[in-house]
């Protein structure tokens, strides 16, 4: 297992009774990168992540997270890994400040709690009981508790589910800040735009395996995929053409119309199109 890998997984297997959730999965996440895991529900995403987090035992395969087998997670390893789970329980009767201060006490070299609270944008809510927070604010608190120990590696499980667009954008800024500071981040999400915006690389899980890993721009030969050129014809209907050389086609159209082409658009498949094709094939 090489040293520049934060996570290295080979041949990971996990079954629940007759149901094989993870079926020979391989994965490598580099130190300092933001890696997004995509996959439909039931593809083995959560099982994989929870094995990496040391919450579940695997049936087979080699797993190394920060150089340690998470099945033998100890306190020293836990203090290097931050985890933001889906829908974890709050401490209703405590204030944001109390909870973050308390969790800071679990770590050998915690960050400053008040600083972390303002970094996640909860400075104005520091004295509020956590049950009074909105969904988005609770998620920020989750992140605060995930990063209070200054983790080298941070797991984020569907962090922005239920956010409004503005809250999502603010959250992305927060994640970018962490990544810029050198934290390795593994993110699972159902939002393709989120993966595209945040991730250095994207891995697609389907049927318990990783079926593709690449940068969001290159995933599934997206760069080389045919572009769709659409324009409006003089009778008002919309014409579409698929082309490997859209620039030439646009030049030809420009010549045909003698300048501006009415209603011209040139599009490549979105990450979502590519992703849906990929998981549709399985």
């Amino acid at each position, binding site marked *: 297992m090489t040293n520049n890998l934060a996570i290295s997984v080979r041949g990971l297997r996990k079954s629940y009774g007759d149901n094989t959730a993870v079926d020979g999965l391989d994965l490598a996440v580099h130190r300092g990168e933001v890696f997004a895991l995509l996959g439909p529900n039931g593809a083995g995403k959560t099982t994989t992540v929870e094995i990496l*987090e040391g*919450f579940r035992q695997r049936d087979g395969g080699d797993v190394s997270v920060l150089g340690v087998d998470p099945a033998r997670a100890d306190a020293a390893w*836990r203090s290097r*890994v931050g985890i933001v789970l889906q829908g*974890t*329980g709050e401490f*209703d009767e*405590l204030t944001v400040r109390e909870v973050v201060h*308390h969790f800071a006490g679990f770590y050998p070299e*915690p960050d400053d709690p008040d600083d972390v609270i303002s970094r996640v944008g909860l400075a104005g809510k520091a004295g509020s009981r956590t049950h009074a927070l909105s969904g988005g604010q609770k998620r920020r608190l989750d992140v605060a508790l995930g990063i209070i120990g200054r983790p080298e590696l941070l797991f984020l499980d569907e962090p922005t589910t239920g956010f409004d667009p503005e809250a999502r954008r603010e959250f992305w800024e927060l994640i970018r800040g962490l990544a810029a500071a050198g934290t390795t981040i593994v993110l699972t999400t159902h939002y393709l735009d989120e993966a595209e915006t945040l991730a250095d690389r994207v891995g697609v899980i389907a049927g318990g395996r990783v079926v593709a890993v690449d940068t969001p721009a290159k995933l599934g030969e997206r760069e080389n995929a045919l572009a769709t050129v659409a324009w409006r014809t003089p009778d008002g209907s919309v014409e579409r053409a698929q082309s490997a050389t859209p620039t030439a086609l646009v030049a030809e159209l420009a010549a045909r119309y003698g300048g501006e082409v009415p209603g011209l658009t040139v599009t490549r498949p979105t990450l979502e199109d590519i992703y849906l094709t990929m998981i549709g094939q399985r």
Partner: protein
Amino acid sequence: MSTTPLSLGLRQGGLEIKQFLRSRESVVFTLAFPVIMIVIFASIFNWELEGGVRFTQYFVTGMIATGLMTVGFQSLAIQIPIERDRGVLKRLRGTPMPKWVYFAGKVVMVAVIGLAETLLLLAVGTLFYGLKLPETAGKWLTFGWVSVLGITACTLCGVAFSSLARSGRGAPAVVTPVALVLQFTSGVFFVFSNLPSWMQQVAAIFPLKWMCQGLRAVFLPDSFAAQEPAGSFELGRVALVLTAWCVIGLLLCLTTFRWTTRRDG
């Protein structure tokens, strides 16, 4: 941040107590319940047992025992499944916090709330209902060890029982009837020696009966020992049964405790 084991445990205990005191339900139903009950019972059953001993003197033993069971057994057996369901346990497991700290926090909370509740009960009983406190050091000593052993058994059983409820929402439905049945059959609401003997025998399997009996040795005159089914307060057997429940509870805790819900695998 200091990270000695003792400070970790006390910090966790402080957090638990804070949460307890800020939850109106737990304050009313756990802390104040025995006091409410003694106010009701002492007002209704305002008669004397033989020898000029007020009924309150008998009833307070059951209320102390019930109070200790409520905070040790009921509150934990209900609270832990809720915390498990809501992912609080999983979140704590994801931190470097040693596992025992979670239990230490519960124990500190149970001990402090149990003590506060008992003192409150004694204060109200003495000030308003003519309760006579034990007069010899020996009786205070008995009071001490019966309470400590009893609340320890209840706490361990509460933690063990917490793995039985399938969900946090179902926990009260599983726990409350058990507590109620034990209270009715163990001599909390009725004079134990008046219960049918089969009921006495069933109750004798469980700790609450022995806690009540040990406390009767503290709060009733020695002459009342003759009215016990065995003709004495059997303090040796009280110690033995409560210790046995501590061992059983501990073994169940160690073998059955779950940090995650069943659907979490």
